[in-house]
């Protein structure tokens, strides 16, 4: 699986997809899901909560590890992907699509600059460990 070009990435292996209107979707990368192994549980935030960049936004559990999903940037949660609670396996199956965790409003677009684009993440990723 590649690295969707229109996404931005963090060093903690989260991605955010911007859909123009200052709103974006957040998830974890294919690399992260592979490291984690079979996902058995996803803990989602409350709608309406706001996070600073780097704050814990959600958790993903496999049978052998727990992975904290950090907010890629300061944001307010508009919606969460309830379907992951009953079908956490989506995170393994379709990390960049069906397995989005939350739709968020981006509070400070400037922060986007600090995130990696696809090529930068691709370069960063392989030698990275969780």
């Amino acid at each position, binding site marked *: 699986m590649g690295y969707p070009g229109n996404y931005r990435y963090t060093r903690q292996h989260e991605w955010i997809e911007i859909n123009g209107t200052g709103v974006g979707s957040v998830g974890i990368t294919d690399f992260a899901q592979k490291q984690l192994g079979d996902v*058995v*549980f996803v*803990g989602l935030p409350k709608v309406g909560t706001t996070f600073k960049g780097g704050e814990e936004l959600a958790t993903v*559990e*496999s*049978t*052998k*590890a*727990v992975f904290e999903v950090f907010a890629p940037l300061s944001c307010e949660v508009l919606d969460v992907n309830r379907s992951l609670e009953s079908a956490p396996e989506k995170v393994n199956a379709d990390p960049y699509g069906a397995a989005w965790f939350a739709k968020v409003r981006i509070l400070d677009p400037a922060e986007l600059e600090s995130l990696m684009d696809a090529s930068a993440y691709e370069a960063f990723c392989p030698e990275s460990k969780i």
Partner: protein
Amino acid sequence: MRYLPKSPIERSQMLSAIAARSMEDLFSSIPERFRLRQLLDLPGPCAESEIIQYFKERARENSVGYARFLGAGVYDHLRSVVTDTIIQRGEFLTSYTPYQAEISQGTLQAIFEFQTLMCQLTGQEVANASMWDGSTATAEAVLMAERITQRRRALVARSLHPHYRDVLNTYARSSGLDVVEIPFDTDGAVSQQALQAELGEDLAALVVGSPNFFGVLEQLPVLAQAAHSVGALLIVAIAEGVSLGLVRPPLEADIVALEGQSFGLAPSYGGPFVGVIATREKYVRQMPGRLAGETTDSRGRRGFVLTLVAREQHIRREKATSNICTNQALCALAAAVHLTLLGKDGLGEMALQNLSKAQFALGELLKIPGVARPFGAPFFNEFTLVFPRPVETINRELLTKKIIGPLALEPAYPELPNHALVCVTETTTREEIERFADALDAALAPLEVRA
């Protein structure tokens, strides 16, 4: 030494194999000055027979041959020899925590059956593989309620076992949890009035014992209603599990903290026992302790594994739901075997015998002039009496007649002088009850000086 399977020759063979000149070399990494030059000053070595002798002598210095009317969280109940036969099987006794499921199916399935039995008893949806005991289970239940509600205040009934309250306070103090005590009313049950006054939206949980420390059964539906009215959880601690054979289970409770000592475990001077936390399915991920779950193996056959492990310390470390690791597995197994032997009828009958004997004892004791029953609420196998004389003084006289009298409540409840907690189980014979009544009568009669 009989436990060590090496001959001197083998030792030297192994030493030379690792190119070590002496045992001393093995410890080269320990700085010279910290290596002990001489042997420790310890008693022994003892032969097996000497060890047995030593402990038999200690046993003789204890209470063998005394009749006992103590409960207060530790109960004498009948046990089948089968239970001990099972838990002394090496495959159960000398195995580790079942992390390697393929060679731990015995332990895992037994835990699964234990969890099921605990759910059936408590009327809850999930129960864990065990906690250390009822007191720590209660404390952990409160921490669990704190995580679920995200609130930092708990109400605890003064009628809850004093040791359980102490342990809760120890845990609460360091984790900055605010614990408020709710007094008991004239019936020995939680004071509704005081409770109403303390209810608030900041409340995480209300903790009560039932039967409580005075033996009294609390009105759980009412208490649950009160707690839930402010979005708090009701935690019910049960120190006498046999009561569940006859007493309505705490269905309204959100978390049940159970002490399982009554299920086939000897009093053993206070431990090891087995605690359990049971709760609703929706709270399972906030639950501490191990859980065995059913699944299938590579060939589709039913098998069991430890599951939802991401809650636990070895995975989540400082974010774990608890620091508990080693629990009381073998005690849980004993409880499972014991309850399976008793079965539905056996447990019911045992509970009925407790109820009947306690009622009989109460009747006999109330015939004694000067003896009164302060609390009117229903009870199971323990009840509170008040005497015209300090309980310690009476017990000192009972002791000379080989009777270990009831527990004096005054040390833990200064407001209850001369109050005693009497416990009677199916192991207490009618003869013992009558002997106790006579001895108590004898202890009180001389005080009947009327002008």
